[in-house]
């Protein structure tokens, strides 16, 4: 059994707005093992970014952790004060964001920005800090570190900037890296370079990664395990193969089916009807029931618990209850899973 590095239990987060309390996260539980990549997927507003903000202690001022805990090395991150968090942020848990241009300071050279992080968190002297900075620049695959050290963010391309952001995040050798849509703003060619970089760094320094994205292709590439979030809850989680090959929750079905399928170009793309619920007034029962064609009567009354499918695969849907009528995953998805398996065989033999 691998070592558990982070354990989030029943996390609830509310935001006070002048319209009332928005229940952004309504009891999310997940764990992260050492050296693995956990992908969190979901629509915008599902609470995936808020979850990571809790872990970084950068929740907006009107946000409040109503209940739950996030255990890291025996410390509950939810109970730390701002001051106490300083020791964790960067050093134990670091984060990279979607748009590198907005997370870098345009008036500082990139060398200085990386060195700032090094000086802040280590006891290195100036000169050593510079050497460490050059080392970091090289680590993230930027050539000519001496020259780049003196350049400003606007002189770099988008991919290079994201590399700099990664270098800053790695400056204090964190154990957990949270990547919030790190490649969404980048081109596909650059995206695959950055993903490869993150993967090789993970191997080199044994990072555990929480990867937030809505691109299922990226998930397939990066993740060991996947957690699907909807309306502030994790409604299904399992290994990446389990989620792609044998998903169990109707929302996950919808999500997978809305990815274009090359084999059937003439069929309309599946789109999930309706919109996510307003979390000012979260619905009773299963939050997805209103949009789901598989909803049972009980879905509107009681929230489904997480049912165990295998040791690693859990899903929150009443369809898995013994008393529920037997419902199988939609035909199109089944076909696609078969096609995937075939494709994989063809690839494996190459």
């Amino acid at each position, binding site marked *: 059994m691998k070592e558990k590095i982070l354990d989030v239990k029943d996390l609830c987060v509310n935001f006070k707005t002048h319209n009332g309390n928005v229940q952004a996260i309504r009891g999310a539980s997940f764990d992260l093992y050492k050296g693995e990549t956990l992908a969190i997927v979901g*629509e915008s507003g599902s609470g995936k970014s808020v979850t990571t903000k809790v872990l970084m202690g950068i929740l907006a001022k009107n946000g409040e952790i109503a209940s739950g805990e996030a255990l890291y090395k025996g410390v509950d991150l939810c109970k730390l004060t701002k001051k106490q968090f300083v020791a964790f942020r960067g050093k134990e848990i670091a984060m990279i964001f979607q748009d590198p241009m907005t997370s870098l300071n345009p008036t500082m050279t990139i060398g200085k920005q990386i060195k700032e992080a090094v000086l802040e968190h280590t006891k290195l002297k100036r000169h050593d800090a510079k050497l460490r900075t050059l080392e970091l620049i090289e680590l993230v695959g930027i050539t000519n570190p001496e020259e780049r050290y003196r350049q400003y963010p606007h002189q770099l391309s*988008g991919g290079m900037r994201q590399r700099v952001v990664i270098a800053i995040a790695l400056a204090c050798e964190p154990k957990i890296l949270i990547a919030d849509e790190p490649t969404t703003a980048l081109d596909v060619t650059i995206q695959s370079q950055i993903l490869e970089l993150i993967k090789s760094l993970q191997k080199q320094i044994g990072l555990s990664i929480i990867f937030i994205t809505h*691109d299922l292709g990226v998930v397939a590439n990066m993740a060991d395990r996947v957690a699907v979030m909807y309306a502030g809850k994790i409604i299904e989680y399992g290994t990446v193969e389990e989620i792609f090959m044998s998903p169990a929750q109707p929302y996950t079905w919808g999500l997978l089916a809305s990815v274009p399928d090359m084999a059937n170009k003439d069929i309309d*793309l599946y*789109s999930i009807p309706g919109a996510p619920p307003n979390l000012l007034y979260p619905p009773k029962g299963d939050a997805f029931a209103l949009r789901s064609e598989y909803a049972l009567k009980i879905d509107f009354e009681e929230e489904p618990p997480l049912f165990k499918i295998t040791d690693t695969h859990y899903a929150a849907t009443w369809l898995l209850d013994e008393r529920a009528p037997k419902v199988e995953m939609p035909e199109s998805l089944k076909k696609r899973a078969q096609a995937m398996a075939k494709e994989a065989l063809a690839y494996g033999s190459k």
Partner: protein
Amino acid sequence: MDQNDVILEVSNLKQYFKMNRKFTVKAVDDVSFKVFRGETFGIVGESGSGKSTTGRSLIKLYEPTSGSVKFEGKELTGKMNDETKRLLRTKLQMIFQDPMASLNPRKTVMNIIAQGLDIHKLYNSAGEREEMVYQMLETVGLSREHAHRYPHEFSGGQRQRIGIARALIMSPSFVICDEAISALDVSIQAQVVNLLKKLQNERGLTYIFIAHDLSMVRYISNRIAVMHRGKIVEIGLSDDIYNNPVHPYTRALLSAVPHPNPHVERYRQRTYYDGKDVDYDLGSYHTINGQHMVLATDDEYKSWTAQ
């Protein structure tokens, strides 16, 4: 799709931007293609390849440096007469990437959508104007109550629908979608793409679909042009481009797209291409089969097809 019915013909389009006395950016450099009535023509490429500039030059957001753009047989470059201007501004429409940035935050949805009608005086009474907007809102899957709200009150997918409504109320025959779905969530993307397809079937629209999301482009397009450094490096039926890419840039681009299949992702081999040793100015278009063409010199063509 009728191959003889050309709705838009672009020949030798050049769009240069003079940065200073010594330096000129050749954003679009000698691009030619035809778009047939009723088809979807995809343009892909990474940022800086000139795909958006091409779209913007077609609709005359920029005045092209040289070359010709013929829409329904009328020349759009240079000075246009009033009739051509009217044709361009009604029958040719554009949907932009970021709906928040392209909708005026201080106007109601009603006034945003009706702006084109106002300018071209396409209604007789205020009542008729309202009715047209209401109908359009319903066509794109919004409701009449939405007409009196402001853009910030909508979600991303709804805003994009407003952008689509604004373009379609002029009853265009040709719509340029510049990264129209890139900013949306996967499930919302599917909704908008289905809507675009439905409207195409109902109204016989022609689309140019500019995007960097190659899987969506393949799904929606009949033909695709791959752009790199201001040139079309490969053009052809979308299946030809995806199943049998010839140009190394197209291959690199396709190999970079992640497949939503975890088994395949483990083994996926990337090919790389920086194109520094290829001078596109030397090449000419070689036909591979039918409509599939690639920009190459004779030697390059031989070595690329031999692989």
